[in-house]
């Protein structure tokens, strides 16, 4: 056995498996429990290890990579604190169904449960925030488990998988053989939708007078954007998208209504409220979309296509569920559509709503506004860039004003709403995308949450455009305080304590700029868009007290939509 060339240590097997999964990048951080793996990594040349500066950054980078590329993102960290630092990222990936595999070191098997040095029960901790997790108890299980981990992460409704690797397992040896196939009897995702249901859906859509497609991240994950484009255009169906769905359908297409929900466009929400057939594709009727469920889209016949049966009837009870992969279902649905519905009047009505209440902001007072900056970024990139946002007002303004033209170019933390997501996620995206600009947009608050990853961007010479929309506030929280909490601006004013962002950038070795002048935006953007061999940073000092509108307050109805500030005096 010892002479068999396939007789290897767990650490060697680990890399053999990653090779077979075509892993190009690992985002990681070393430590005691995974030293053996790092020892072998030193001589591995088929993949690149990206050293982050905090394990949370590794997970977000893996997410950014996965979302931009459609492949599985891979993370490697040590036991204990290394593992617990990944928790926020894993929860984020779980909420947004991002396929990643996180390898965590673990203390030796015989020490598990002993409160050993750097021991943490990461399997227990991550159980509710992973699609599945594995503790490898024997080196012989390692290869089959890794095979299963990649399979589970990337199939069905994707999600994060954790593989916990005790030190002794990594060190001990066995004969390596990678399984050719995966067989998990408790896991059989349904890809093909029920044909009768699909026929029925086609009939209903054909007869609709006011149909609406409600599109979520599932369309992007399943790679169905082309199918969606054809289906919507051939049948003249208007399309509204969730935050995660943006990019699934071109934002510049006349049939696109932009985003729906809490900060969705007025016309998208009016369309939801008045449609007679709602077709949900890879979306989950999340509370940021529905508001008060009882008043959500009450007049429509609802069709729900989703690969995850638990998504169906969870928040909103639908009339026609179709469990399956959107890609398969859309193709079949398109083939079943004999006559497109007559939507001429309906589209005209939506156009009227659009004119009634467009996305507006003050343009004539000479002050710099986030919406203006986003519009400029859109202009410069024609909607072709990969734009990675953080969480807060700037995220919503980007969703409203950046009209994404391609799938996999809108990367943001939607489900968990994780501040600090953008910078590390843009690093992952920059490894996946080389032919289009990658832009990271953060607020002044969130930017400071994973600021250490500036080093990673610099070291790897990633041409990320790092934009900070500095409103000197935890702006989104400030907005809620103004609207719902008696204007008690409790701990949201960052103005006096924010660092000098230009100096911060320079300290990391980044060419950095700052402006509060709308007239400088063009030239600054031009300058950084030309730089392609290193990161650049621009701080946009924007108006402090601006608010994101329209807004449907949490748990409220479309009739409660606020389209502008009630008290104009406060427009400082």
């Amino acid at each position, binding site marked *: 056995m010892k002479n068999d060339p396939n007789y290897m240590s767990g650490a060697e097997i680990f890399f053999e498996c990653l090779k077979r999964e075509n892993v190009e990048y690992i985002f990681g951080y070393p430590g005691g429990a995974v030293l053996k793996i790092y020892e072998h990594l030193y001589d591995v040349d088929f993949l690149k290890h990206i050293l982050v500066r905090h394990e949370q950054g590794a997970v977000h980078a893996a997410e950014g990579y996965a979302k931009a590329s459609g492949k599985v993102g891979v993370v490697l960290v040590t036991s204990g604190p290394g593992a617990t630092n990944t928790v926020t990222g894993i929860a984020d990936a779980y909420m947004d169904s991002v396929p990643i595999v996180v390898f965590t070191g673990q203390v030796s098997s015989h020490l598990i449960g002993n409160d050993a040095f750097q021991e943490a029960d990461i*399997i*227990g901790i991550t*159980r*509710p925030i992973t*699609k*599945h*997790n594995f*503790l490898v*108890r024997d080196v*012989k*299980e390692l*290869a*089959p488990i890794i*095979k299963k981990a990649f399979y*589970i992460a990337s199939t069905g409704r994707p999600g994060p998988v954790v593989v916990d690797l005790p030190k002794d397992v990594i060190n001990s040896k*066995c*004969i*390596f*053989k990678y*399984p050719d*196939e*995966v*067989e*998990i*009897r*408790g*896991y059989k995702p349904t890809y093909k939708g029920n044909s009768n249901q699909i026929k029925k859906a086609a009939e209903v859509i054909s007869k609709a007078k006011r149909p609406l497609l409600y599109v979520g991240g599932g369309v992007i994950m399943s790679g169905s954007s082309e199918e969606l484009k054809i289906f919507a255009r051939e049948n003249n169906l208007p399309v509204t998208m969730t935050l995660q769905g943006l990019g699934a359908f071109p934002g510049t297409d006349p049939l696109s209504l932009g985003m729906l929900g809490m900060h969705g466009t007025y016309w998208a929400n009016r369309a939801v409220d008045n449609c007679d057939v709602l077709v949900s594709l890879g979306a989950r009727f999340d509370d940021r979309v529905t508001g008060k469920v009882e008043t959500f889209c009450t007049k429509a016949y609802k069709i729900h296509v989703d690969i*995850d*049966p*638990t998504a*169906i*009837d*969870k928040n909103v*009870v639908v009339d026609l569920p179709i469990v399956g992969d959107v890609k398969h279902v859309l193709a079949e649905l398109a083939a079943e559509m004999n006559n497109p519905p007559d939507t001429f009047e309906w589209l005209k009505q939506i156009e009227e709503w659009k004119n009634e209440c467009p996305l507006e902001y003050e343009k004539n007072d000479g002050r710099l506004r986030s919406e203006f900056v986003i519009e400029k970024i859109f202009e410069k990139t024609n909607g072709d860039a990969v734009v990675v946002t953080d969480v807060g007002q700037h995220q919503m303004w980007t969703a409203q004003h950046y009209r994404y033209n391609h799938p996999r170019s809108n990367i943001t933390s939607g489900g968990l709403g994780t501040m600090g997501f953008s910078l590390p996620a843009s690093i992952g995206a920059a490894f996946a995308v080389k032919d289009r600009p990658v832009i990271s947009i953060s607020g002044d608050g969130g930017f400071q949450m994973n600021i250490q990853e500036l080093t990673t961007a610099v070291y790897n010479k990633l041409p990320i455009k790092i934009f900070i929309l500095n409103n000197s506030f935890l702006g989104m929280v400030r907005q809620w305080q103004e609207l719902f909490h008696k204007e008690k601006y409790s701990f949201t004013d960052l103005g006096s304590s924010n660092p000098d962002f230009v100096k911060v950038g320079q300290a990391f070795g980044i060419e950095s700029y700052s402006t509060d002048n709308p007239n400088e935006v063009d030239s600054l953007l031009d300058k950084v868009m030309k730089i392609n061999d290193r990161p650049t940073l621009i701080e946009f000092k924007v108006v402090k007290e601006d608010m994101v509108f329209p807004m449907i307050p949490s748990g409220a109805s479309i009739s409660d939509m606020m389209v502008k500030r009630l008290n104009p005096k406060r427009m400082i």
Partner: protein
Amino acid sequence: MKKHTISILVENHFGAFDRVATMFSGKGFNIRSISIGETEIEEISRMTIVTEGDDKIIDQIVKQLNRLIDTIKVVDLTSTPHIERELALIKVNVPKGTMEEIKNINDIFRGNIVDITGRSMTLEITGPPDKIDAAINLLSNFGIKEIARSGIVALKRGEQIKIKKEKNLTT
């Protein structure tokens, strides 16, 4: 809110039970009783969970259970013909002169007297849960010291549920 008995076949390995329990607690679903044990197939265990909720909740519970990778088969037995049994150990006081009466109750419920110590006696009673409730109710007149109930185990009547043998992919 109706009670539902859900039968779950799970992989008999590390963590499978925790996944089911975590799902229930994480989603805020109730567990009224839970039992777990081996089956005719070595690597598979059966969990029987009694839970409660309206149709929408039960629908979610079944779907969420199915979504777990370690669950092989999930069946809500409530609306299909099935057998439910539970075992209870009931330690009851035996006041002077009541021994015969307690023995009679035990006989009526086809129980076993498994222990007699001093002034107390332990009965073992099996049956559908309502039968056990009835026995406990009668015995409470004498003063009950302790009760241990196993939780319900249940099987569908008639044909068995087929399970595929998993290929052993371990190297």
